[in-house]
C-alpha cells in the first residue's frame, strides 16, 4: 500500500546549498500534507505542513511546494546546515480520517 512515496532513500548535499526532497502520492482524497524530521532514537518531529488549497508554504529555511495535478510535493531547505542531517518523512491525511499516512523517508546528509 504505497499511498505516499519517497523514491529517493538518501540524499547528500553540501552545507549552504539547497536540499530538495520529493514526495509523490496516489490518493487524490489527501488534502493535508506534512513533513516530519526524525533523528535516530527520537520520534518524528513536525517540520512544516500545507493544505490542499495552497501550493506553497514557507517557514524560515523550509518551504513546501504542492502540485496537486501531479500529486507531488517537495520540501526545500535553504541553506542546508549539518544539523539538518536526518530522515525526512513526507506524510498525508484525508479529511475524513484521523490517521496520517507516512512515506518511507529520505535520509538527508548535509556535508560540512
Amino acid at each position: 500500500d504505497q499511498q505516499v512515496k519517497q523514491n529517493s532513500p538518501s540524499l547528500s548535499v553540501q552545507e549552504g546549498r539547497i536540499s530538495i526532497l520529493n514526495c509523490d502520492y496516489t490518493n487524490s482524497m489527501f488534502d493535508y500534507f506534512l513533513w516530519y524530521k526524525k533523528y535516530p532514537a527520537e520520534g518524528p518531529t513536525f517540520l512544516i505542513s500545507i493544505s490542499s488549497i495552497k501550493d506553497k508554504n514557507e517557514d524560515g529555511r523550509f518551504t513546501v511546494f504542492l502540485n496537486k495535478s501531479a500529486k507531488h510535493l517537495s520540501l526545500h531547505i535553504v541553506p542546508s546546515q549539518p544539523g539538518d542531517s536526518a530522515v525526512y518523512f513526507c506524510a498525508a491525511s484525508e479529511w475524513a480520517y484521523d490517521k496520517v499516512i507516512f512515506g518511507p523517508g529520505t535520509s538527508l546528509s548535509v556535508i560540512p
Partner: protein
Amino acid sequence: EPEVTQTPSHQVTQMGQEVILRCVPISNHLYFYWYRQILGQKVEFLVSFYNNEISEKSEIFDDQFSVERPDGSNFTLKIRSTKLEDSAMYFCASSEGRQGYEQYFGPGTRLTVT
C-alpha cells in the same frame, strides 16, 4: 516547549506476555494516537482516541491491542499477548484538533519480544 513523553524507552518481554506502553500527551491536546515502526519499515498508524473512545483504528489494531486514558494525563497502549512480530518502535502522538492540526510525537518505546 511542551512535549509528548513516553515510558519506558525500551521494553523487553517474552512472547505471550502482556505489555503496557505509557504516554503523557501534551496537556491541552484532545486527540491521541499510537503509531508503530517495525525496523526498516514505514511509520504505521494504529489507533486514534478522542473523548474517551477510539475514533479510528487500522487493520493492525486487532483484539490483542487496547488503549485507555486511565486519568487526565496518561494514555496507554496494552498488548495482551505479545507476538514476535510486535517487536517495533511504538510512538505516541497528540494533537489539538483533528484535521489541519499537526500531530506531535513522543520519543517512542522500543518493544522487543523474545
